[in-house]
């Protein structure tokens, strides 16, 4: 395993974390959109809000991490991707701004009209952002991004069958992950009717995702034959593992073991992305640019490896702390401050 491969793998782990954690946050926004009228949807919306409020900013940073590793370690490939695909990426960035701002500010506002406007903004941008990101993946995976600055077609690189498939799958996967995550959150809060609602949604979304996935294979065979051959060839074991994990998740959902269902669902989604990576290997930009060719200088890669290991050692305990604190209940509101409290 070469140094560039190690760094690309670390970047890919960041991408997986973004897909799983931020993906679930996006999905929660999609369910917010579909929760129904102001009064009827209120319990669901409040559960969604409590589930993602403390973690969404941290989850979002995985994307920044992916971007900075890409542009430092693989600057040429980064420049090619972001210039050819600048339209969906700009729209995704706008979606992230709208979603973050609307979500952040919604709860600080009490007037119904403004809340509806911001709630709508949050939910709608949660739907379109994963679509554009999925379309970007589709453009890269189907070999529509040649090396060079804005060398590809800025329109057909993301308006094409594979990109459409990527976008739709991204939306479905986000919605599915969110439904599964919300089952466990609702269970922890003891809100059984919400547990049942999100369980039904998880099962339904899983069925749709599976159907689109199977139909998608035909799309890929016609539109991206190289990707299709490799997905059904050398990546077949990974895709098979994804199917097994997906089925296991369904069984766990049916038997209401939500924490295990979370893990199985995460695995099912992660393996789809790993399958894409295996199918692309050794290319960063299929079929033009390999990992070795795209990599930056060795001193840079070494410095990054050191930084990533050291940073990871700081970051992981902090993340674990955040997620575990989040499970902790609140005690008395506004504890009475007194002189000796600071001491002990």
């Amino acid at each position, binding site marked *: 395993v070469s140094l560039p491969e190690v760094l690309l793998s670390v970047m890919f782990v960041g991408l997986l974390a973004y897909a799983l954690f931020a993906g679930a946050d996006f999905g929660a926004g999609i369910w917010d959109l579909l929760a129904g009228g102001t009064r009827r949807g209120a319990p669901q919306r409040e559960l969604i809000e409590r589930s993602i409020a*403390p973690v969404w*900013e941290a989850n979002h940073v995985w994307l920044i*991490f992916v971007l900075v590793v890409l542009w430092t370690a693989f*600057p040429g490939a980064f420049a090619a991707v972001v*210039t050819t695909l600048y339209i969906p990426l700009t729209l995704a960035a706008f979606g992230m701004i709208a979603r973050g701002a609307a979500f952040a500010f919604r709860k*600080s506002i009490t007037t119904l009209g403004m809340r509806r406007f911001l709630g709508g903004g949050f939910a709608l941008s949660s739907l379109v952002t994963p679509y554009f990101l999925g379309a970007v993946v589709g453009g890269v995976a189907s070999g529509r991004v040649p090396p060079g600055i804005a060398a590809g077609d800025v329109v057909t690189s993301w308006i094409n069958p594979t990109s459409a498939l990527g976008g739709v799958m991204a939306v479905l996967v986000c919605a599915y992950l969110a439904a599964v995550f919300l089952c466990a959150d609702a269970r922890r*809060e003891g809100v059984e009717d919400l547990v049942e609602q999100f369980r039904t949604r998880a099962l339904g979304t899983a069925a749709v995702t599976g159907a689109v996935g199977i139909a998608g294979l035909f799309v890929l065979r016609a539109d991206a034959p190289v990707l299709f051959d490799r997905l059904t060839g050398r990546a077949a074991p990974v895709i098979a593992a994804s199917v097994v994990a997906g089925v296991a998740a369904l069984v766990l959902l049916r038997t209401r073991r939500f924490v295990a269902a979370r893990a199985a669902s995460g695995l099912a989604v992660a393996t789809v992305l790993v399958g894409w990576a295996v199918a692309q290997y050794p290319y960063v930009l299929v079929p033009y640019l390999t990992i070795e060719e795209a990599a930056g200088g060795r001193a840079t890669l070494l410095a990054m490896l050191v930084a990533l290991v050291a940073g990871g050692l700081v970051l992981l305990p902090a993340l674990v702390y955040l997620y575990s604190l989040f499970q902790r209940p609140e005690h008395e509101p506004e504890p009475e*401050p007194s002189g000796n409290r600071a001491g002990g």
Partner: protein
Amino acid sequence: MTGFDLIADAAENLYPARMQMALSLGWHIVFACFGIAFPLMTVFTEWRGHRRGDAQLTRLAHTWAKAMGVLFAAGAVSGTLLSFELGILWPGLMDRFGEVFGFPFVLEGFAFFIEAIFVGVYLFGWNRLSPRAHMLSAIPMIVSGMAGAFFVVAANAWMNNPTGFDLAEDGSVVNPRPWAAMFSESTWPQVTHMLLAAYMVTGFTIASVYAIGMLRGRRDAYHRAGLLVPLTFAAVLTPVQIGVGDWIANVVADNQPTKLAAMEAQYESTAGASLSLGGLYYDDELHYALEIPYALSLLIHHDPAGVVPGLEEFPDELIPPVNVVHLAYNTMVGIGSALLLLAAWFAWAWWRRRELPRSPWFLRAVAVSGVAAIVAMEAGWVVTEVGRQPWIVYGIMLTEDAVSPAPGLFLGFYAVVVIYVLLTALTVFVLRRLARSPGTPAPQEADARPPDAHTGEVAVK
């Protein structure tokens, strides 16, 4: 010029791309300042509150923590757009030099991650952690905020003073050395200048909010503390900032002579150069300016006879827009000096009487100091960025060679204008609400309310 001409002109991507970047950076940097400096002021107030058993101070700290959450959210989303824009607008820069100066951004990624996590912990843990654990949870937030500023400004310092690589015969980059690139000669002065600016912007702005409250008659202990704590931070650091300004000007003089000449609007290379204030630069000369004899040579060389190179030494196409840079520089220094006077007034009254100056003009001055500090900081960035033009990497790569040629790119500028107008309106609206009703939750807090009345007992368990 008709609207059609405007769009046709804009089809050249360079100008709209520069405006888009300026707007995005100029917006983000205000919120970044609060991300850097607000945590320390907040936790300091929280600590004093616990220490003195002063519920007012604890309440003040909680309100600030929520405001910090709102500002952090706005900063985080605008920062995300910037990381896209670096590649989308300036692919020539990232393609050629990403491996040289991208490294500090990787470190900034970690710093920002830690800060995001602990902003969440700090706000979410307000009633879930013991006071001591809660205040300790602020330390990573304070450290990572300042570290993040270091990394981003280090990347900018590299653009001003590129080091840590070699150029081959054909102009391609060889032998990138990311650690050396991160510590160019410009890094420490720029970072120090920015960190102090962040504390000044935050301190004066927060103080100005409470000064306005006091001018409207709310002269209780709560408002007094809300003015006193941030104003003290800002006032103590303002004289330090003036000294650091001298340091950074000297580094610019050594490394970016065209930028320095534009800052001073100096055409002829002169010994015993005078310092020019204001004025308008045209026909290779500065008109209507107030001149202070020998002051420029004194400032730059600490010698009244020192020679300051002027714009005549450089070809026209390599000279930045002189008026913009010169007036921005004067604005920054002028406001900085006014803030120094305000700080001195405050210090004198405090030293004599342990009390704020009694004059209503003091409160009025504090009330405008926040906006003034922000204007000064923005003017400083205009000096840095416009003063570097036409280079994106000083002396090595022109900005026009870095911009993306992608068709339609200029439309992004118009979209970004609309988005930032909306975002600004929303942020101001929410912060005003927060100021009026402190019970308003911050974005990182979860509602304590259960989702449904009949499940309440279970949900709060």
